[in-house]
């Protein structure tokens, strides 16, 4: 009932693991697949090994978390080994793999994309990390020209796998960026990356708690802002949208689809409901569809009518 076709790929359900959660190792990804995710997304991988920010890298706040992992990863050449280890297992389970990648410019993005593409079903471009520093992440996704050049460079060197751009909500006009990545040839848009960034100061020691001082906000509280971004993107472009931000229940996923998402990703929700949140959300979505006697594809964009 939840089978979803995107970019010509059949997903057994539209509830995916978001980048950055349990994506450090192949076996952690496999575990999420076993818990019912329709696809699992790797953490964001770059060209070279990166240690990330000092701890604390996460702090809970009202309605969610701030995180500033700092894109830790062993570098693309070592990381493809992680995927190789689990590829067959995931295939048997019918779970697709999304490879999230980052880079400081078109050139770095292209190199990583070329290396990862044989190992994944879909490529996700992280041009939206709000705490990466330097010229990584949101510095690209807040600029329509840079976003355009990264997407088109990756599209030039990847033929087989669809390429999605993950966007940051921390812009004055998300439609402008969405149109820009569509124009550059993106096959889909993932929205949103974490919000803010935000900061928590410990009032006893007077110091920011996060090692990086500030971090992007995820969790239930960012859902309304994610919904609005998906709604706006849907009204601006023709591309399929993967909604992400604060989803913990099946009805949240339905709300994203009414806003215009064709599928969703779940990240922080894993904390609120456990690793089997994917199974739970799918079950709740099915229940809703049965009750209302409607099909999944009939609700996508339904709030625009």
């Amino acid at each position: 009932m939840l089978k979803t076709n995107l970019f010509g790929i059949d997903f057994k359900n539209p509830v995916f693991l978001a980048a950055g959660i349990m994506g450090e190792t192949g076996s952690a990804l496999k575990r999420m697949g076993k818990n019912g995710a329709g696809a699992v997304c790797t953490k964001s991988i770059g060209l070279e090994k990166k240690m990330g920010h000092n701890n604390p890298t996460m702090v809970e706040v009202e309605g969610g978390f701030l995180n500033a992992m700092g894109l830790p990863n062993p570098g693309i050449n070592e990381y493809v080994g992680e995927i190789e280890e689990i590829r067959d297992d995931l295939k048997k389970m019918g779970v697709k793999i999304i490879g999230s990648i980052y880079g400081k410019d078109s050139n770095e993005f292209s190199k990583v994309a070329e290396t990862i593409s044989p190992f994944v079903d879909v490529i996700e471009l992280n041009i939206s990390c709000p705490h990466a520093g330097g010229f990584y992440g949101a510095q690209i996704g807040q600029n329509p020209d840079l976003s355009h050049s990264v997407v088109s460079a990756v599209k030039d060197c990847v033929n087989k796998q669809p390429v999605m751009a993950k966007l940051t909500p921390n812009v004055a006009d998300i439609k402008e960026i969405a149109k820009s990545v569509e124009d550059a040839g993106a096959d889909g848009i993932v929205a949103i990356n974490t919000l803010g960034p935000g900061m928590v100061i410990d009032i006893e020691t007077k110091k920011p708690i996060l090692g990086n001082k500030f971090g992007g906000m995820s969790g239930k509280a960012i859902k309304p802002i994610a919904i609005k971004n998906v709604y706006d993107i849907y009204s601006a472009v023709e591309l399929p949208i993967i909604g992400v931000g604060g989803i913990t229940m099946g009805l949240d996923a339905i709300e994203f689809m009414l806003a215009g998402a064709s599928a969703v990703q779940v990240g922080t929700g894993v904390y609120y409901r456990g690793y089997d949140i994917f199974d739970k959300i799918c079950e709740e979505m099915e229940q809703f569809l049965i009750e209302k006697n409607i099909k999944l594809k009939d609700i996508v964009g339904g709030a625009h009518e």
Partner: protein
Amino acid sequence: MEKPTICKIKKIVEESPTVKTFILNKEFDFKPGQFAMIWIPEIDEKPFGFVSKNSFSVAKVGRFTEALHNLKEGDLIGVRGPYGTSFKPMGYKILAVAGGIGSAPIISAVENFSENIEITTILGGRTKEELLFKDRFEKCGKLYSCTDDGSYGYNGFTTTKMEEILKTENKKFDLIITCGPEIMMKKVVEIANKYNIPVQVSLERFMKCGIGICGQCAVDGEGLCVCKDGPVFFGDELKYIKEEFGNYRRDGSGAIVK
């Protein structure tokens, strides 16, 4: 997830040339084997096992632990936890095998369990000075000390002593608990399996969130998180960490380190 609870360091005890115990002004309701994330503002935050409800013991092994060792009484640190699984007392006779700083979670377990359970401890250290909590272990039951340099007790590995005890003393233990270098624990598990005694092992991995969502401490092959599914694993669970246990770990970037 808690924000760090800011604690004042009430007292610092030098346990050995490389290990200090930090006694805090606040108490935590922990179970033996559980850990907390210890935060030094502006430096870093790492996991340490509770030694008592208000203390942690830290061996100086790197940048962060050196920063901890440089703290003075009266300084403030953040503590969030307790997190993770704990040692579970089973049966009537427990054998504890502790190596080096691995003695920290073991001493809290042994002190906690010894009221109703007969405890035998094998304690390993490089030298006599590095035999941590020797006096406290002695109060909890029979203690076998082992040093690498023979400066005290048995001159050799804890695991050699362990086999000797299991063979010659013909003692029937209901449970073995262990914490120490992973290569030692791997051997402990092998011996425990050979003698068909259940074993609980406390693992250590690079941790970030401490609550099972970032995936930093996920171990191959089932992706169990040391912070949430562990740090204490039963021997049965170790079978799902088979390839990684005793063989390799990951650094902060996720790269494999042998």
